[in-house]
């Protein structure tokens, strides 16, 4: 049998015969490869895979124009009317289009299909390059009564028959005629998952342009505009150009006093334009995340490699004589290295297989981990790139590890190795290399752990922060008002006191309380924890400053039910609400913003003039409550002052917050039939506990918390087994020296101290370098990645303390094992 074949066989046998070498290799490299390959699979898909349904990617750019309400909240200004105007003004730059995805249930032949709905401009197919498979083009005149469906919906709901054209489907209680079938378009930026069952609502921009637009409303109708140019690299409008367009747009669309008011508001609010490539827009924050993950896993891989290198170097040191013999009988350096390569290969292949299995498992868990926040999530899988990367990494490492096999051999003086007894100091002639590797490893661990701990703390604080209220056993009930006429009727604010919306809310509340035992409708609107946010602005008469605030609703039992602190004054009584008094409750933030020089008690009774808006709330401050956080799971709260009004707006949907006694639960079934009977114009009833909303809002942060904790654990594990492995091997090699020391009177504890002292400098240098690198690298990363929190010295100190403890333990435990196993035996051998 050839030596190479024999080496391969040895390698297979070694997996079982040398578990101290093979298990750390397979586990460490397997786990790390799992992390690296997962990131490679994600990034290769997200960065390079063709986008399904978007065939013009190379010529596409996106353009955002956002109003920054606060440091953490910005809202897009775009809707179809504004797109139509923009398209005309900047036509020379390319073809402008708009698309906005949303979740939409549609009914076809009495079956409900969950779909992604696209509200898009009539030039969308030309701009995206998506194919119309069947039927009329979306450019048809008056497309409002028609709907286009995706290929997948066509297949699943209609079996792919051509006679689908002209058939009806129902969405939002309205019937639409199917005008065509479009290929599945999956690559559109969205906060929700993009389903392959899709419906398209098309707006004819020429017709839209003739319709009035309420220019003062900014509500993210379309998140970004698309621009298709010849080379995909058009010089898109600057902020100044877009601002200038906005002024003209307002001037053209508003008359009278409102014009100046809107101009003041819009021009005095911070704005930003963001122009980028289509893919960059699609990836959004994921792009930064990929870079961060890449940095992290490469750090981990580096750590794992150094770690294993140390173990292997120690292993090779124990085989120095064997290699020297091979060389002495005529094996070339290359041949010995190739033999070592063959010997290592089976373990490395097993590590690669473990890595791929880990990757498969991680990618399978990705939808659970990343939720809807990652684009193209369904397309991410172990692909050719991933497999090629795993082979390349494993081969590279195998070659590197084999190359180092002869590091301890004096090739020009083989006699040194051949005549050495293998005892004492000579056995570790290259110990400096192991130590340098260990120092580098500790430094990397320090850098990685710094970032991990900072992100962990940020995620923990975001998830478990004090919201300013107790959720209790509360439930959120939502229902849609489908027809526009009814919505308009409910919005008649001039008639609020006896308005239909007030009656409707009261009647539905009574219906809920009558049908759900022990239920108490706290407010016919949002709870303090809610995904919805209504932001308004006005100019303060006192200071002249522009105040952007969130408008929320109150009821007489709202604050007490959620245990929200009233800091001054009082909530409105039921009588005050019934009388529709011009009174509000504000939060502390609003009080400080409006009346910075007054105490909270002095603010009570003051008046706030919210301007002439007909939607403006009443204005005498009746009470001040503590600040609350309405959307949890985000690192920086929105920080907008809040105004609580008893006047509850009727929009396209209604919300009710219901409290039940502890341990009780409710569901839609309990009152859905009665609701349909009494209020047939209300649809799509949904009931969710607030705890579920909290879980959903905090999902990303909780997942990030666990991922980072896992990464932290893996880093600590790598550092620990690296140090332990090195100590075990070096202590083993120093058995003879230790035995001599023991023979001359050293006690076991003294030997442990001796080894510990020896390891201490590694720790000091490693952590010292790591500390400097951490601070420096973190500051650089912080500038590049917005998602990183600011540096926390306390966390850093705790982390270093933990690392020191782990390293100390990793030194003491294996050293003690060797020392307590009678090193004197070494003296008796040979």
């Amino acid at each position, binding site marked *: 049998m050839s030596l190479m074949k024999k080496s391969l066989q040895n390698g297979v046998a070694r997996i079982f015969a040398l578990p101290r070498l093979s298990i750390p290799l397979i586990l460490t490299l397997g786990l790390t490869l799992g992390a690296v390959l997962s990131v490679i699979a994600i990034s290769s898909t997200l960065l390079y895979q063709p986008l399904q349904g978007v065939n013009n990617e190379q010529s596409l750019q996106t353009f955002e124009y956002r109003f920054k309400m606060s440091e953490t909240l910005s809202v897009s200004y775009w809707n179809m009317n504004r797109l139509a105007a923009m398209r005309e003004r900047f036509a020379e730059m390319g073809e402008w289009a708009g698309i906005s995805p949303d979740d939409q249930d549609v009914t076809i032949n009495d079956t409900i299909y969950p779909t992604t709905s696209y509200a898009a401009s009539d030039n969308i197919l030309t701009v995206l390059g998506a194919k119309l498979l069947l039927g009329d083009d979306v450019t048809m005149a008056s497309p409002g009564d028609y709907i286009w469906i995706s290929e997948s919906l066509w297949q699943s709901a209609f079996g792919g028959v051509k006679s689908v054209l002209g058939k009806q489907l129902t969405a939002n209680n309205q019937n639409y005629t199917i005008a065509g079938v479009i290929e599945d378009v999956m690559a559109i930026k969205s906060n929700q998952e993009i389903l392959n069952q899709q419906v398209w609502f098309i707006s004819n921009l020429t017709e839209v342009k003739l319709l009035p637009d309420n220019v003062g409303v900014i509500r993210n109708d379309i998140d970004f505009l698309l621009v298709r140019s010849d080379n995909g690299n058009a010089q898109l409008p600057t902020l100044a150009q877009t601002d200038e367009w906005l002024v003209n747009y307002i001037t053209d669309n508003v008359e009278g006093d409102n014009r100046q008011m809107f101009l003041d508001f819009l021009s005095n609010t911070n704005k930003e334009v963001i122009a980028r490539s289509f893919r960059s827009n699609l990836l959004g924050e994921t792009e930064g995340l990929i870079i961060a993950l890449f940095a992290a896993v490469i750090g981990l891989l580096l750590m794992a490699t150094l770690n294993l290198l140390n173990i292997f170097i120690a292993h090779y040191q124990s085989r120095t004589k064997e290699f020297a013999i*091979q060389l*002495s*009988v*005529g094996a070339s350096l290359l041949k010995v290295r190739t033999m070592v390569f063959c010997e290592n290969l089976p373990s490395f292949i097993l590590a690669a297989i473990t890595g791929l299995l880990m990757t498969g498992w991680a990618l399978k868990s990705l939808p659970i981990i990343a939720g809807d926040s990652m684009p193209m999530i369904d397309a991410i899988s172990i692909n050719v790139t991933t497999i090629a990367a795993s082979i390349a990494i494993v081969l590279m490492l195998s070659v590197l590890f084999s190359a180092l096999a002869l590091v301890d051999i004096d*090739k020009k*003086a*083989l*006699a040194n190795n051949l*005549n050495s007894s293998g005892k004492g100091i000579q056995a570790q002639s290259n110990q400096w290399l192991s130590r340098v590797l260990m120092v580098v490893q500790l430094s990397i661990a320090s850098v990685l752990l710094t970032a991990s701990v900072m992100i962990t703390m940020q995620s923990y604080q975001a998830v478990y922060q004090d919201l300013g209220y107790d959720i209790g056993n509360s439930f959120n009930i939502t229902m849609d008002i489908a027809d526009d006429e009814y919505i308009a009727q409910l919005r008649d604010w001039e008639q609020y006191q006896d308005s239909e919306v007030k009656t409707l809310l009261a009647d539905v509340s009574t219906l809920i309380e009558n049908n759900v035992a022990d239920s108490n409708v706290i407010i016919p609107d949002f709870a303090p924890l809610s995904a919805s946010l209504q932001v308004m602005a006005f100019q303060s008469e006192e200071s002249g400053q522009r105040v952007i605030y969130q408008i929320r609703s109150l009821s007489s039992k709202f604050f007490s039910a959620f245990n929200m602190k009233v800091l001054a004054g009082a909530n409105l009584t039921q009588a005050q609400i019934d009388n529709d008094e011009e009174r509000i409750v504000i939060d502390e933030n609003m009080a400080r913003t409006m009346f910075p020089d007054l105490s909270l008690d002095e603010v009570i009774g003051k008046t706030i003039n919210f301007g002439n808006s007909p939607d403006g709330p009443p204005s005498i401050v009746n009470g001040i409550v503590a600040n609350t956080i309405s959307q949890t799971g985000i690192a920086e709260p929105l920080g907008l002052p809040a105004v609580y009004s008893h006047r509850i707006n009727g929009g396209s949907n209604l919300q009710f917050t219901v409290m039940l006694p502890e341990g009780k639960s409710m569901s839609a079934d309990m009152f859905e039939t009665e609701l349909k009977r009494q209020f047939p114009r209300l649809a799509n009833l949904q009931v969710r506990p607030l705890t579920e909303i909290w879980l959903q809002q905090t999902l990303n942060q909780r997942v990030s918390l666990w991922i980072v904790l896992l990464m932290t654990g893996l880093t600590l594990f790598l550092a620990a087994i690296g140090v332990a492995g090195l100590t075990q091997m070096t202590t083993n090699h120093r058995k003879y020296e230790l035995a001599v020391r023991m023979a001359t009177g050293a006690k076991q504890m003294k030997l442990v101290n001796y080894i510990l002292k020896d390891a201490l400098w590694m720790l000091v240098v490693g952590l010292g370098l790591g500390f400097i690198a951490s601070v420096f690298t973190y500051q650089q990363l912080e500038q590049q990645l917005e998602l990183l929190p600011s540096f926390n010295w306390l966390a850093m100190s705790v982390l270093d303390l933990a690392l020191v403890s782990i390293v100390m333990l990793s030194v003491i435990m294996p050293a003690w094992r060797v020392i307590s196993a009678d090193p004197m035996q070494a003296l008796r051998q040979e």
Partner: protein
Amino acid sequence: MRKVVEMNNIHKRYDGQQIETHALQGISLEINSGEFVAITGPSGCGKSTLLSIMGLMDSASEGEYQLANINTAGLKVDQRTQIRNEHIGYVFQSFNLIDNLTVFENVALPLEHRGTSNSEIKQRVEQVLTQVDMLHRQNYRPNQLSGGQQQRIAIARALVGKPDLILVDEPTGNLDSKNGDQVMALLEQLNKEGSTIVMVTHDSRYSRCANRQIQLLDGRIVTEQQLKGVA
């Protein structure tokens, strides 16, 4: 007669932290094909160093060395390895057999590295194992053998490549007198069959088995004595 070893003014120095050790101080010698040369001298006189340089396991600090008419100066590591493989068989005092290989595999190593065909390896290994009377142990591992048997395997490994020169470092140092005698008898037999042998020993009983004896002291040749004629 063909010259196998030609050394001229060989020096070897080891640099310590503060003191320099001058292990060999101008050794010049020639060894012809078929000779059996014993290098003797007290501990630390430079015997093993001289053998290591002769076997290209170490290099001289100064001087010229030609092995089988090949000038060894300035050779790269792999060139030295190849010369060792083709021209030298080395027998170590502590045998230096690889524990996880069988006797057969240990002996076959030089031929494996030379790229010899499997059938030829089998034939040649069996031949040398027969020569050292160890064929019946070919599937054993070194740690299953006695010291004398291990030394015979080491000699077989040195013989298997039909080298121009067999270098033997204290072949009896780790053996009892019975095993030591057997190994020396084997070396004598090999020399009679035509092998050129250079042996380092400090045992005067065994040095007398050689044709020529070179005595070293403090890194220098102090006496050179022809004991008997070359066969």
